[in-house]
């Protein structure tokens, strides 16, 4: 469904990705793991179009996304929850969610999407008139995920959704991601909680210094000696 082919990406002269290629199949949860600065976020930014690859390409279905502007990729169904939530801090929870449904297709289903988000995160319904900047970290993450769901994603990309959250909230976020996937949304997940990410995901890709070093079924990677040593400390 989503395929990267030999992607090189740079920030100025600094190479962030070198020859990264992998595929995400429809209906899967794929975890993208690796150390800090391994290129995980860059990979998501290349897919969403915020960073243009210097070489290689991104395919969505049969379409080459190279010439598709970042905002137009959202209308195709590629939606990213950025690292650090990036809510609109001076707008209410409800306004943030409504902004998620910006593309023509999503706007038509705005009311139904909103009901779905309230059902998924009842706490957001209680806080709908509150400024997003005043929410707790966990609530902000729920709001950011809710906002992305308002766009009616076909592929949902989450960048470190559990960063800085208490364990009980981490569990809640993982559970939500599983529920979203069960509802038919393909998920590409960047996580620093490697063990939990691998437990949740169907498949995983491991990045190291901008290169893809391992790829496979999550359950198998969980037992991989190298990965255990490098990321699980065992």
């Amino acid at each position, binding site marked *: 469904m989503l395929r990267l082919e030999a992607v090189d990406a740079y920030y100025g002269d600094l190479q962030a990705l070198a020859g990264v290629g992998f595929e995400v199949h429809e209906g899967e949860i794929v975890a993208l793991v690796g150390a800090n600065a391994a290129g995980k976020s860059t990979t998501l930014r290349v897919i*969403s179009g915020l960073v243009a690859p210097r070489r290689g390409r991104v395919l969505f279905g049969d379409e080459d996304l190279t010439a598709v502007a970042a*905002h137009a990729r959202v209308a195709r169904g590629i939606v990213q929850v950025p690292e650090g939530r990036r*809510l609109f*801090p*001076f707008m209410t929870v409800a306004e943030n969610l409504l902004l998620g449904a910006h593309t023509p297709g999503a706007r038509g289903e705005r009311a139904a999407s909103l009901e779905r988000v309230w059902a998924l995160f009842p706490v957001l319904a209680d806080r709908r008139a509150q400024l997003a900047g005043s929410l707790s970290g966990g609530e902000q993450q729920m709001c950011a995920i809710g906002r992305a769901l308002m766009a009616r994603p076909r592929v949902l990309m989450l960048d470190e959704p559990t960063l800085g959250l208490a364990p009980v909230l981490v569990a809640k976020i993982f559970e939500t991601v599983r529920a979203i996937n069960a509802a038919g949304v393909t998920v590409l997940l960047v996580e620093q909680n490697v063990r939990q990410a691998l437990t949740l995901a169907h498949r995983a890709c491991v990045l190291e210094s901008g290169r893809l070093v391992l790829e496979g079924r999550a359950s198998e990677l969980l037992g991989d000696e190298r990965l255990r040593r490098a990321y699980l400390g065992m």
Partner: protein
Amino acid sequence: MDSARRLGPAQIGVLAQLGVSTVLLGGIYALIAVGLTLIFGIMRVVNFAHGEFLMLGMYLAFWAFSAYAVDPYVVLFVSIPIFFGVGLVTYALVMRGVIHASHNVQIFTTVGLSTALQNVALVLWTGDFRIVRPWHSSVVIRFADTAFNLSQVVAFLIAVALTVALFAFMKWTHTGRVMRATAQDGDAATLMGIDTDRVYRLTFAIGIAAVGAAGVLVAPLYAVYPTAGLQFVLLAYVVVVLGGLGDMVGAMLGSLIVAAVEVIGSYLFGVAWKEVLYFVLFIAVLAFRPAGLFGQRGAETLGA
């Protein structure tokens, strides 16, 4: 005027007159400043050519009136779409290329645009002072102890209506939300499927339409000439800094304060002092409250 300085009923009449003049002037200043603060708040560009679009609005009113005897209030309805279009074209030709450039480049660009527009006006229409005198500019309304002319009152009412409409648009429409979201976090807006280039284009066009309308409204009240915009835009900067860069409500309150300083200062010290007075105010605000009288520090980077 001197006799009014003694205590007594006449003094109260003067205060009422000063108050009314302040409010009338403040409403018009608000419409000029609100476009400037909108463009800054969302695009992070200080439009130094803002006054020149006001000047073009004044000339539009002048030519429509002198060539076709069309009243400025009728011209207003045409001016809004015309200046919206002028804003779109200016964005495409001039602003689009510098929207992501450094502030220095943006300043040079808009100052250059300002100079170019002034000189185009000078070449096309000469440096003569032109006067627009529709019938309503000589109708004096007396109410209680105050007197003001009809043009001033209508200009005030229309300016306030447009400012409020713009405010409501920003607050309650989807497009308004999209514009505020883009100001608060452009990348996050892109990830919501928002075409930020389109937002900037629309913002610039709305800002120019607002200041063009203000130009048409002030044409019956002030002389029209190629650098007529300067006197207004200087005070618009003061208003915008007072209110907090990018803060629309602040711009409305700032307009009233600047108008009060101008009206009361002119009465107490003479008209010649008014610019000195509001620049003293400007410097004081920059020194003691750099985020504006009502803003929080750093609000200018968040588009609140």
